[in-house]
């Protein structure tokens, strides 16, 4: 092919995608950018809002608290999710189907319903405490809810399906003959798991962790209900600044910060595995 023909050739598939891309850009990206520029213009033009990250104790504490809770949730959810995914991998096919349905149904239940259910189960006057008091094991109800512990329980439970699914997808992609080969070469069960299986699931763990972390950054309802008003996270703070105190510049600044962090994290994720796997495509 002559050089001229090469350079004037546009990949025709771009033309197929172009209308959808244009729609997303105009109707989604442009309005979001419009709001985010408020962080530079409200109340005064400049980087005043961003200086708050360093100057204001409130904003710094808020970001640190959100990060702390999200990291703990990620570790807890991915650990538990690993156990569940491992069990599902080795279960009989019909048992696995049942486990999957239970997981999916809990996934589909609204977050509001789940938060109130936690309150009913572990709250001051809830099933767990009443049972423990009736059995004589404790005299005062244990404070499971209306504090950071309650928030972590609620968030971990909500994030469990997000952790299980990428892990399961990854594990199912591992050739089972590899573990058998390892056993046949003399490795014990523990050695096989630690030195063969676990490293192979590393992409899955990373994908699950990043997915859970990114999702939990934006949590609003669960901390608001289960935290007793004391556990404020970034999403709720943004909402208060938007609606109650009308400090739109601060809200936009925090929102920009969140979106940028998420995009950076997804770029990092992309280095470890193709993003398409997380969103349902095939491995590699």
């Amino acid at each position, binding site marked *: 092919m002559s050089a001229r023909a090469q350079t004037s050739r546009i990949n025709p598939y771009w033309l197929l995608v172009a209308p959808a891309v244009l729609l997303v850009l105009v109707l989604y990206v442009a309005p979001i950018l419009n709001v985010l520029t408020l962080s530079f213009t409200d109340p005064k033009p400049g980087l005043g809002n961003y200086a708050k990250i360093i100057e204001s104790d409130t904003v710094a504490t808020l970001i640190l608290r959100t990060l702390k809770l999200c990291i703990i949730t990620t570790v807890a959810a991915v650990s538990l999710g690993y156990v569940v995914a491992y069990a599902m991998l080795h279960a009989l096919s019909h048992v696995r189907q049942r486990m999957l349905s239970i997981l999916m149904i809990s996934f589909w239940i609204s977050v509001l319903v789940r938060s109130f259910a936690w309150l009913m189960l572990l709250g001051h006057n809830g099933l767990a405490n009443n049972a423990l008091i009736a059995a004589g094991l404790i005299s005062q109800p244990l404070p499971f809810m209306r504090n950071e512990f309650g928030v972590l329980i609620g968030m971990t439970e909500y994030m469990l399906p997000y952790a299980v699914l990428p892990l399961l997808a990854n594990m199912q992609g591992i050739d089972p003959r590899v573990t058998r080969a390892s056993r046949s070469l003399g490795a014990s069960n523990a050695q096989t798991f630690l030195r063969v299986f676990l490293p192979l699931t590393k992409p899955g763990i990373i994908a699950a962790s990043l997915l859970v972390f990114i999702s939990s950054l934006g949590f609003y309802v669960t901390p608001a209900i289960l935290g007793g008003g004391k556990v404020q996270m970034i999403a709720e703070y943004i909402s208060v600044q938007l609606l109650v105190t*009308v400090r739109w510049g601060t809200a936009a600044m925090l929102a920009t910060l969140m979106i940028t962090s998420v995009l950076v994290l997804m770029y990092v994720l992309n280095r470890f595995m193709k993003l398409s796997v997380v969103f349902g495509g095939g491995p590699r």
Partner: protein
Amino acid sequence: MQDKAFLKDLAREGAIAFKSGRLDRRSFLALCGLAGVATLAVSAGDAEAAANEIVMWNWGGESEKCHGDAIGKPFTEKTGLPLKFDTSGPLQGKIKEMVDSGKVTADVCDADGFDAIALGKSGHLEAIDYNIVNKAQIKEGVAWEFGVGVIFYGYAFMYDTQAFGDNPPKGWADFYDTAKFPGKRSLYKWANGSIESALVADGVAKDKVYPCDVPRALEKIKSIKADSLYWGSGSEAHDMIVNGEVVMGMVWQNRGKAIEERTNGRYKLVMNEAIAMPGAYIVPRGNPAGRENVMKFISQALQVDSQLMILDCLGMTPSNPEAFGKIPEAMQPYAVNSAMNIDKVIFNDPVWWADNGGDAVNAFLDAIG
């Protein structure tokens, strides 16, 4: 964003002028081009046809039915205009955003006094027409330029009679005294009411509460932080008391009677030193039904029978002085403006809250975190 509202007004005035013959067609079309309005979309008839219904933006729950029966029914009988509701809750930021965007969908908002002052200052509200709304029917001090205080509600607290039956707490000083009255308390999360209660507990005289010394209040609030929970909605406040999570809970006074009944009298309401908040009906600028209709609606809300019905259904106290004397005996202990309570409550200063509310809320959230 202000331009959009101005351009819309420009187009509307131009259409009215065109229809009445004062503007010729060419100039009108030029005006439309200037205002960025597609000529196809403009028909002079539309500008005149104000929406033939009133949309009230309130907080949902019981209030939809209550406002409908108490104000909507008599209003519709008199004017023929139906009453519709938007129950998403008119927070200050939402109202501001709605007016800025140019698409005003609500006629009257059930908001707070400080919203009336803050949004009035920034030009987002219609001025109240006191030729239609009768100032004599409004309690003194709450007939503002951009809003009318139609009802009063209050921040009071309820205590557990099982825990403190023989020595009941009498005011905010007792509420903040965890040594004498041990147990958990609940406070309002968005600072309003909580700050004033802390100042009173710290010894500030009732008439010196405003302007609020916020740092002093926050010190007091931090002193009981370990024993406090914070609620953001009426149902959360209700749940915390009914589930026995707190021995003393701050509540909106209008819920007091309902909670007392729900707990079979176990929790009692204390109205002494309650912080009385004027609820304001405000009109977003450019409301669809037009000024006259919405002023008639507000006027209806001030009538004695509507006011008493709201008291009965929602627990919100009337603002019409005529209605004070007519509050039924059973409701008197729970009403802000009844003879027994009106001297004991502390009336909120909406001007201070309009100017300092945002900072106060942020400082409060910071302190309790």
